[in-house]
């Protein structure tokens, strides 16, 4: 008890423990502009700051649920579980790391895939769960991607993948490296058959994921200011022994250097990809609507 609290007569003393004026998680501070945001509002904006448009990370499930039309989402290959083929053990056992990650994310592995549509344009979509071991790609991730691609091929509907990954999963050693070859090979089939693949690179997309299927989109899209590259900035800094330029390996840098086609705000993603994919698949232009007017800020709305 502090000296100040001691001065207060005991009958008007309140016990701070167990009481919180504001329930946890109701407010969220934007790490970029420091604005304190109401969680429900942030949710409505798909984890994009309504003030400064900073794109915060979003869970794979939440992303796909918001991205696809609500009425026909079907999760694919949800039963696939990671295996510890090598009995890998570092400072912790891989098996234990899997358990921790599963508990934390409520996902079996770092990718989920769904079939559905965007503004009635049919698609197969998959997304990485970054909170699951850094979205690392092991056999299950590779397998889910390959199965999603095969399904897109069989149904002749476009494939979309939202990447968010640190790269290959070390604990699955060379098996994870081979997923780079597998996922790239299956995209070769899509290319042959003229089935579109749109790769959406989100923060962060690095290493073996960026150096395989994520760069092989017919269209490569990035979310604003996402970190995208082959080697991590720290590794590069140690190699070249100089500080890296501002904005290095960010979406805008990649756009300038010709690696990505487009940068699209998360809240516009649905509408713009639907419009784009309808053209690539010879369908009529879909009737898209701006996502609940989320892109114009409240101030401009009231003034107009």
């Amino acid at each position, binding site marked *: 008890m502090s000296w100040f609290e001691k001065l207060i007569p005991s009958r008007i003393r309140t016990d701070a423990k167990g009481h919180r004026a504001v329930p946890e998680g109701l407010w969220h501070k934007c790490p970029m502009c420091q604005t304190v945001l109401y969680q429900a509002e942030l949710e409505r904006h798909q984890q994009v700051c309504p003030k400064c448009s900073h794109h915060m990370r979003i869970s794979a499930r939440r992303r796909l649920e918001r991205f696809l039309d609500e009425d026909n989402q079907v999760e694919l290959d949800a039963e696939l579980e990671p295996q510890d083929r090598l009995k890998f053990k570092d400072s912790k056992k891989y098996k234990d790391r899997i358990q921790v990650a599963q508990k934390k994310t409520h996902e079996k592995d770092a990718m989920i895939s769904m079939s559905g549509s965007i503004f009635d344009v049919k698609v197969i979509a998959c997304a990485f769960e970054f909170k699951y071991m850094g979205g690392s790609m092991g056999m299950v991730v590779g397998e889910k991607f*390959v199965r999603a691609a095969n399904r897109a091929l069989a149904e002749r509907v476009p494939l979309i993948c939202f990447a968010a990954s640190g790269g290959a999963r070390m604990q699955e*050693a060379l*098996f994870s490296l*081979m997923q780079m070859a597998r996922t790239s090979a299956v995209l070769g089939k899509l290319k042959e058959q003229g089935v579109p693949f749109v790769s959406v690179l989100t923060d962060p997309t690095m290493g073996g994921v960026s*150096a395989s299927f994520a760069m092989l989109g017919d269209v490569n899209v990035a979310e604003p200011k996402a970190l995208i590259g082959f080697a991590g900035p720290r590794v590069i800094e140690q190699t070249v022994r100089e500080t890296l330029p501002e904005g290095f390996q960010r979406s805008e840098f990649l756009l300038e250097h010709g690696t990505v086609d487009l940068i699209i705000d998360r809240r516009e993603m649905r509408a713009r990809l639907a419009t784009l994919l309808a053209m690539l698949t010879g369908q009529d232009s879909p009737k898209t609507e701006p996502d609940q007017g989320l892109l114009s800020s409240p101030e401009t709305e009231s003034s107009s």
Partner: protein
Amino acid sequence: MNLNFLDFEQPIAELEAKIEELRYMGSDNDLNMHDEITRLQDKSRELTESIFSKLTAAQIAQLARHPQRPYTMDYIDKIFTDFEPLHGDRAFADDKAIIGGPARLDDQPVMLIGHQKGRDTKEKIANNFGMPRPEGYRKALRLMEMAERFQMPILTFIDTPGAYPGVDAEERGQSEAIAKNLQVMSQLKTPIICTVIGEGGSGGALAIGVGDRVNMFQYSTYSVISPEGCASILWKSAEKAPEAAEALGLTAHRLQELKLIEDIIPEPLGGAHRDPEQMADNFAGSLRETLQQLQQLSLSDLLEQRYQRFMAFGV
């Protein structure tokens, strides 16, 4: 300490030094040291055999990076004829970390592509220690597509610490260059044999490593990350590299057990650098045999088997 020998080879180095000494004495005065020398040579061979019969993964990783280990160019010189090195990606530059061009294996025209580390300091720097930039991978791609047009089998030699992690490499799209190769190689209409001759460093190795057969030299390594890199991330200490090497299972034997590679090409006693001629013979034999097997397949079978080979690494 003899620098021609690795730390775990020091007992051999001591014996070899003794043999040298005796030889010197033998030629100096007329003493016949012959029997003693033969005895010590036998002992040295036994010792080498015994040390090399139980190498750890970390020791094999040291051998794979041995400064005297033969590189791609050494094997090209010893095994092939008519090699014509072709340069550049036709867009930006010529990356010396990857060399390639047409050559003949016996009478058969083939396309050779391989990482080339450098022997001396000057060459090491010019070749960027065998770490390619995007233009290197794009040169490889250009040569592979050329091989397809002219129906030449492709032989790749993998020996790299990894793709170069640098600002310029990122600017020119390192990821895209690697990814593109993976996709194109999976569909090239010509046989591809990939051999890890030294260090198979992650995506930088895989970018010329998608083929109908992936073989490894006995003391080469192939891994998703270097043992040092893995140790510093997962153990938070690069000193745990030996443990990481073990856990990653990066040796030819372990990877063959896991069915990730096909054949292991045996190395001479003490490693490829102890007898490069013998190593080249072993390698050439393996290439001839594998090529013959692949050339018996129809093109559609070849491509389907290659595709299924990689698809098999799933759940």
